[in-house]
């Protein structure tokens, strides 16, 4: 596809890319710390992935292969739109196959297939400050990070346990990176949190509206906060995916009718279709239906 005339490769001008690149290098050097950057107005709205888009635009080269997912899926409209944006402005190759991508921009999920050292994950982040819901003033949260004073978050989680019997955060579950900075993993389900830990891929996080980037280098310790008597746990479903039979993936609930009928299918569309192509079936697969 030809790129749009009048715009630089990957839309951003070179000075902006340099500014973002410098911020990314500091983010990598200080794992989990939110680096302020001069976020630009992008041609897509704030809150729709402008942080991730600016990171991708700054790291992207002509040989890269880009995958964009939203909720784990390549074909949700916003993922399609962002992929189209880079195909138009950078003319790069895109893919839906996790293993073929060199850069994966994501909103709210980490792919089920393990990532490699040759890949970079780019997360779109709406609210980068993990303490924001407990303390909205940035002047204060910055001090708390400087002092590594995360008592506020521990108290919140402990109060959850006292009130509900368990920690009531199910997504954007706070993590401690490299034993130092408390970090918001973006609204991934806590199911994905263990994948952050010691991942071979470099993980970059961009919040455009809030003007922050941060990073988890490869092979970095990432702990989900918990307590000895209430260890961190993740969701597992009783039934496998209704389309591919996977028992190890994050499942979306699909409402089938207005009488309580529902089924559960993989949120990671590439994972599910790859498994189906390899012959795996679930309760709603055509084969299974015919047999029934």
């Amino acid at each position, binding site marked *: 596809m030809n790129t749009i005339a009048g715009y630089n490769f990957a839309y951003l001008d070179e000075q902006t890319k340099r500014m973002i690149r410098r911020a990314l290098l500091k983010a990598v050097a200080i794992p989990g710390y939110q680096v302020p950057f001069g976020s630009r107005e992008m041609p897509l709205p704030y*809150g729709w992935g402008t942080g991730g888009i600016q990171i991708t635009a700054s790291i992207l080269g002509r040989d890269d292969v880009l995958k964009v997912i939203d909720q784990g899926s390549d*074909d949700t409209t916003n993922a399609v739109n962002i992929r*189209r944006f880079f195909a138009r402005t950078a003319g790069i190759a895109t893919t839906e196959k996790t293993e073929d991508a060199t850069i994966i921009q994501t909103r709210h999920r980490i792919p089920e297939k393990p990532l490699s050292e040759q890949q970079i994950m780019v997360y779109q982040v709406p609210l980068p400050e993990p303490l924001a819901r407990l303390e909205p003033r940035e002047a204060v949260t910055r001090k708390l990070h400087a002092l590594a004073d995360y008592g506020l978050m521990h108290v919140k989680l402990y109060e959850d346990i006292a009130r509900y019997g368990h920690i009531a955060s199910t997504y954007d579950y706070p993590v401690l990176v490299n034993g130092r900075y408390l970090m918001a993993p973006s609204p991934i389900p806590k199911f994905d949190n263990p994948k952050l830990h010691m991942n071979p891929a470099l993980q970059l996080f961009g919040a455009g509206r809030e003007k922050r980037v941060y990073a988890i280098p490869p092979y970095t310790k990432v702990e989900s906060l918990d307590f000895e008597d209430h260890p961190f746990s993740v969701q597992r479903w009783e039934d496998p995916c209704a389309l591919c039979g996977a028992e190890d993936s994050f499942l979306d609930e699909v409402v089938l009718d207005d009488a309580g009928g529902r089924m559960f299918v993989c949120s990671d569309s590439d994972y599910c279709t790859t498994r189906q192509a390899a012959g795996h079936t679930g309760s709603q697969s055509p084969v299974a239906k015919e047999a029934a």
Partner: protein
Amino acid sequence: MYVAVKGGETAILNSHELLAAARRGDERVPEITPAQIRQQLRLAVARVMSEGSLYDEDLAALALKQAAGDQVEAIFLLRAYRTTLPRFGYSLPVDTSRMALRRRISAAFKDLPGGQVLGPTYDYTQRLLDFSLCEPSASPLPPRADEPLAEAMPRVSELLGHEGLMEEELPLPGDPAPVDLSREPLSFPADRATRLQNLARGDEGFLLAMGYSTQRGYANSHPFAGEIRMGEVALEIVPEELGFAITIGEITLTECQMINQFAGSSTVPPQFTRGYGLAFGEAERKSMAMALVDRALRAAELGEETTAPAQQPEFVLSHSDNVEASGFVQHLKLPHYVDFQSELELLRKMRNRHEGRMKVGAGGTAPTEVAAEENA
């Protein structure tokens, strides 16, 4: 068989075409041109330029056409375009005392040097729909004053300054260059130059509401419209190879100086203080609201009690930008299946616990929790 929904590029392209058709409307009606918008909807153009942070009437008019009149969308279009423009240099500060005035009023003094100049204003129109505008009309010749206005008119704040009753406004030591908020992130505490820059780009409706709240007791403020002036000012730059200032054009500005009483402190005698508002084009509501909010945001530095939302810099400055606010509010339209699924699962669990049942509701296969190996 269940087939997963595919959004896809076709749906997006079709929606663009539907949008273009809706923008054009009935083709029996002549298509509007950016030139018409620029000439006849100049106040809409002014707002798009101010909040879009780009003084270009043609581009603002084009943005308004493209956005079908949606001002926030037009502002967004202009901002996104502005981002891509190279910087050639920085202009000198504009001198509004040398403004070629078209309007200048003061609510503080009945008469003052240079006089009150009403100019083009809606203030004393009687808000009766004018049905004659349904038909094309010849533009009336504008009335002319008997004598030209003075070339430079002193600002009201300067008149009071002579008596020592008005706080002085001096550049900070070393006269540091202001932060450029379009290039650098906002950080706190934000100095006044940064705050004013933020407010100048801020949403008019937001500033209006915040300014209004200060009049209703949410901040201890007693403002007087010291002076509002509107007209054209010259924009000057100093090219490096010349070494002296040259005029590169002129822009229309509206400036408002609000005067507020200040009780004084241990170090400062009682005096008047100011709130400042400035906006591109004819933008009186915006610049007045901005001046009220500017003054409210100075509460902490003046040692006043800060109790009201309009006095909290982080609250005001972090929420004033309509491009940011519109994006984030509307991002709720994006799919949130994954977080919703997580919440749904949590709620079912809490509900079960609440009802003392261990069994999950009909048809469900609620996830259970297992310890994460990596964290164990």
